[in-house]
């Protein structure tokens, strides 16, 4: 018999909650006197209903153990230190990209991701990350004209 997966049940409950939030937010959409045969609420209501029904169906699937996740071996441990390094890199990026600029923030992100994937050479990763980010910056910002903001290194390029 298939095992009931608590993770799948949590995902299904989360999905129902999303559906309820969408339903609530739909009820908050203001109606204008502007003429519209189908108002701005009709489609969102259908979507909200669909989300809630599908969430309940997911919950039923998870509860009855029919949800065959690709990860059959859910016992396989999640590598939390790796996720931690990834989370650190992403957080650093979003907090500091506006302060130190894209290149330096990306250098740290690059090294943190490399660490998450098992690299043990932080100095090398920082160096490669810096060069990679600088080249990418020049390519996208200078050649393609995409505004990547400014920063500590960017102002010299």
């Amino acid at each position: 018999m298939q095992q009931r997966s608590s993770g799948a049940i949590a995902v299904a409950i989360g999905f129902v909650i999303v559906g309820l939030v969408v339903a609530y937010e739909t009820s908050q959409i203001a109606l204008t006197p502007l003429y519209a045969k189908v108002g701005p609420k009709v489609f969102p209501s259908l979507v909200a209903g669909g989300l809630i029904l599908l969430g309940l169906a997911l919950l039923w699937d998870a509860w009855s153990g029919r949800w065959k996740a690709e990860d059959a071996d859910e016992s396989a441990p999640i590598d939390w230190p790796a996720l931690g390094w990834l989370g650190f890199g992403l957080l650093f990026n979003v907090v500091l990209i506006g302060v130190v600029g894209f290149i330096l923030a990306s250098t740290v992100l690059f090294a943190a991701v490399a660490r998450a994937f098992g690299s043990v050479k932080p100095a090398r990763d920082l160096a490669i990350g810096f060069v990679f980010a600088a080249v990418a910056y020049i390519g996208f910002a200078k050649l393609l004209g995409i505004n990547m903001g400014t920063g500590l290194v960017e102002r010299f390029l």
Partner: protein
Amino acid sequence: MDTLSQLANGFAVALTPMNLAFSFLGVLLGTAIGVLPGLGPALTIALLLPITFKVDATGAFILFAGIYYGAMYGGSTTSILLNTPGESATIVTALEGNKMARRGRGGAALATAAIGSFVAGTIGTLGLTFVAPIVVDFALRFGPAEYFSLMILAFVTVSAVLGNSAIRGLAALFFGIWLGLIGVDLQTGQARFTFGILELLDGINVIVVAVGLFAVGETLYLAARHRYGKDEILPVKDSLWMTREDWGRSWKAWLRGSAMGFPIGALPAGGAEVPTFLSYYLEKKLSKKPEEFGHGAIEGVAGPEAANNASAAGVLVPMLTLGLPTSATAAIMLSAFQSYGINPGPQLLMTQSNLVWGLIASLYIGNVMLLVLNLPLVGLWVRILAIPAPLLYGGILVFATIGTYGISQSPIDLILLYILGGIGFLMRKYDFPTAPVIIGMILGPLAEQEFRRAMTISQGDVTVLVTRPLSLTLLVLAAIALVGPYLYRRLNARR
């Protein structure tokens, strides 16, 4: 005929030095990302969407089309040499191709995949050339009601028919439609689902969703599950020249695969998985040496590879003639049309004749370039496979940052990116398909638009969807696609 003169005109567009360069860049980039596991054409085109502000539409679409075709070629190299399918459509190629490489026949496998891709890509593009105008003639009769019903059919087929679970597919689709509804409603000016965040008034950019789900989510998943760097890259020992027997066993499989891939790809259902699997089973049935299947039969590489490439051309038929994307890549291309202010649909072939025919002509040219790039230069691509995982995924996340931060230099977009990355991780872990999210996000608002148009014309009478015969037919097909597989299984179980 008219089609031929327009195609000739298309070649005149595609053969300008600038557009040739775009095509070459596209197929080069496409092959590279196709080779790299975890990177696909949908993600790459999403990351390159910002060039639509700089480059003219024809050049941009020739580049995108090159990436799209190139990724198909590159994906087969990875499947054969690494046994890690780069794309869902090359799973079948890995079955026999990797076995061939293990037996030292990797060169022949790569050759039959590349030549088969070329043959099928060319046949598929020919199909696109001659079928597209016919579909357009037919589609000009569609009113908003028919369009809405057609979109419902596409919604059902892309989410419920393919994949392991109809419920999870539909859940992904509805989530995507909801994401597409976020922002100001264009018809009434009302803000919807913005949670008081100013940045959300313009809606969520498809780049953020595609990059979040495909790049960030995939990276989180691989890091958390330690699924990287485990497979060994098999060396290519034999020559890339196929033997007489290889040719004899391959050419029919190429043609059969093409014949199967193009029509299935061109249906509003789309998807390359079904024709590749069908082709595999057909070749196994027809083979004179069925005992070789499972140990590296060349037909098992030739047929599915051809089916894969022909269906890739087929997917462009509904995309260019109806504005109906049936794969994540096509959905992102559709959003590129929108950012040029072009409305894809039956008028596209007339109003943007240079663009569409230039694009189609570039597919013929790109196929030739890809054959050259992938056979003699296959050693180069193998070297890309040797990039260590830490550096590869570090680079992918830096590119993800560029694609997202470059939209508006707003940390909100980055936060959204990471939230969607987390959702992508969960979707991957709990076996949800991700393509329906992208398709729902792009097609959902269009479906709402057509629904509103239909209701305005019919004075709010919903029955118009079932009283117009064509619309009713499409809805019935959608209903069959939704409950058919379930009933079929029920009936089989009872027997």
